[in-house]
C-alpha cells in the first residue's frame, strides 16, 4: 500500500518534472556559447546570481522589499476585513458604497502609485501606502460578499439559539465568509507583489525592483538578469506559500467539501 503510494508520487513528480529540467538544460547549453550581449550564457548569470543574492545584497534589497510587501498587505487585510465586515452587515450601506469600491478596483493597481509619489515622495511610506491602498479593494469586496451571503439556515439556527449580534458575526458570519475572503486575499496578495515591484521601479533607490531597473538602465545586463530571475522565483514561491497557508487555515472547509 505504502509502496504503491510512493510509486504514484514518484511517477507524478517525473511526469511534471521532465519538461522543466529539459528546458533549463536547453537554455544552459544553447546560451553557453552566446555572444549576444542581451542573452548572456546561463552559467554566467548563475555565477553572478550567487555573488549577488547568496547572500550579499539580500539585506540591502530583498529584506526591505519584503518588509514593505508584508506591512502593506497586513494593513490592507486589517482595513479590508474590518471595513468589509461593517459594510457587509448593513445591506443599505453596501448598496451605496459598492459602486465607489467598484470604481477604485477598476483602476489598474499600479496606476495608483503616482498619486502616492506626489503625496509622499519616494521613501518607504509611499511604497507601503501604495501597496496597502491598492490591495485593500479586493479584500474589501470579498469580505462584503462573504458576510452578505451567509447561509440563511445557519442564521435562523443562530437566532433560535438567541446568539447576540456579536456572536452571530464572530461565530457564524465570519467563519462562513472565510473561503470567499481567502479568494480575495489571494488576488490581493498578487497585487501586493506587483505594486511592491512597481513602486520600486518608479521610486528610485533601494529594493529588488529598483536594483533590477537600475542595472538595466546602466547596461549591467547580467545583474539585470539575476534580478529578474530572483523576482520570478520570488513570485512563484510567494504564491506557493500562500496556497499552503490557505490549505492549512481552511482545512476544515476542504474537509467539509469532501464530505458533501
Amino acid at each position, binding site marked *: 500500500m505504502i509502496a504503491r503510494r510512493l510509486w504514484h508520487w514518484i511517477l507524478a513528480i517525473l511526469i*511534471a518534472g*521532465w519538461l522543466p529540467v529539459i528546458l533549463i538544460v536547453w537554455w544552459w547549453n544553447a546560451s553557453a556559447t552566446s555572444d549576444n550581449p542581451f542573452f548572456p550564457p546561463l552559467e554566467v548569470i548563475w555565477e553572478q546570481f550567487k555573488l549577488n543574492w547568496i547572500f550579499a545584497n539580500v539585506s540591502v534589497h530583498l529584506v526591505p522589499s519584503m518588509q514593505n510587501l508584508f506591512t502593506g498587505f497586513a494593513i490592507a487585510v486589517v482595513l479590508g476585513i474590518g471595513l468589509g465586515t461593517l459594510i457587509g452587515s448593513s445591506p443599505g450601506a453596501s448598496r451605496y458604497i459598492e459602486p465607489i469600491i467598484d470604481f477604485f478596483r477598476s483602476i489598474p493597481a499600479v496606476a495608483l502609485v503616482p498619486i502616492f509619489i506626489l503625496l509622499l515622495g519616494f521613501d518607504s511610506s509611499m511604497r507601503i501606502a501604495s501597496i496597502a491602498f491598492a490591495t485593500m479593494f479586493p479584500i474589501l469586496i470579498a469580505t462584503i460578499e462573504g458576510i452578505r451571503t451567509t447561509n440563511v439556515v445557519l442564521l435562523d439556527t443562530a437566532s433560535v439559539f438567541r446568539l447576540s449580534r456579536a456572536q452571530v458575526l464572530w461565530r457564524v458570519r465570519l467563519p462562513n465568509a472565510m473561503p470567499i475572503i481567502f479568494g480575495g486575499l489571494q488576488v490581493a496578495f498578487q497585487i501586493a507583489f506587483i505594486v511592491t515591484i512597481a513602486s520600486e521601479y518608479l521610486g528610485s533607490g533601494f529594493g529588488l525592483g529598483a536594483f533590477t531597473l537600475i542595472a538595466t538602465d546602466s547596461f549591467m*545586463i547580467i545583474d539585470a538578469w539575476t534580478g529578474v530571475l530572483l523576482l520570478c522565483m520570488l513570485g512563484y514561491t510567494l504564491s506557493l506559500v500562500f496556497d499552503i497557508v490557505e490549505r492549512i487555515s481552511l482545512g476544515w472547509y476542504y474537509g467539509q467539501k469532501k464530505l458533501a
Partner: protein
Amino acid sequence: MPAALRRIPAGMISAIVALIVWQIIGSVGPLAGDSFATASEAIAALWMLLSKPEFWLAFWETFQMAAIGFAISVAVSVPLGILIGLSRFSYRSSKFVFDVLKVIPPIVLIPIAILVIGPTMAMGVALVVFANVFSMAIQTAYGVRDADPVLLETMRCYRMNIWQQIQYARLPSAAVQIGIAMRLALGASLVVAIVSGLVGGAGGLGSFLALTQSSGNADQTYAVILFLGIIGVALSRMLVRGQRRIIFWSGR
C-alpha cells in the same frame, strides 16, 4: 426618502457624494495643497485633456497594445492548448511549467524586455502576450480534457478521425473555458498595456501618466487616473453584458 429621490440609481447618488467628499478633503485638512488635486480640479483637467489630440493618441496606443497582444495570445494559446489537452501525458507534463509561468507577473520581466526589445509598443504587446498566453493555454487544455468520455468513445466506435473529434467533442467542451479565460484576459491586457507604458516607457496612457507625475502636475495625474477608472468600469460592464448575451441561459 421622497419617491423622486428613490428613483435615482444608488450608483449616481454615491458618485455625487464621493465627489463632494473628495472636494472637501482636497480643500481643507492635511491633504490640501499642490500635490493633491480636488475633484473639481481633476475634472477640469480631464475636460481639458479630452480636447487634446495627444491624449487620444495615447489612448489609441494603449488600446492597440492591448488589442494586438490579446489577439496574438488567443491565436497562440488556443491551438497550443488543444494540442496539449489531446493527451493525458502532455497535459500533465506541461501543467507544472505553465502554472509556474502563469503566476509570474509580466511586470517582473520589464527590465529584460527593455533591454531585449526596447521601450516601445512592441514591448507592451510582448508583455500582454506573456501575461495571457500561459493561463489561456492551460485553461483551454483543461477544457479539452474535460470533454465527455462517452461522447469520445462513441466517436471512436464510428471511426471518426482526430479532426472530427476535435471539432465535435473537444472544441465545444473547451469553448466555455476559452470564454472564461478570454474574459479575464481582456481586462488583464488593458492593465498590462497601461503598466508597461507607466513603468517601461512603452507609450500610451501609462507613459502619459508617468509624464504628468514626473512633471508634478497633480491635476492631470488625477485626471488620467480618473479616466483609467472610467474605462475600467466601462469595460467590465461591457464584458458582463456581452457574457449575458452569449451565455443567455445563465445568470438571470
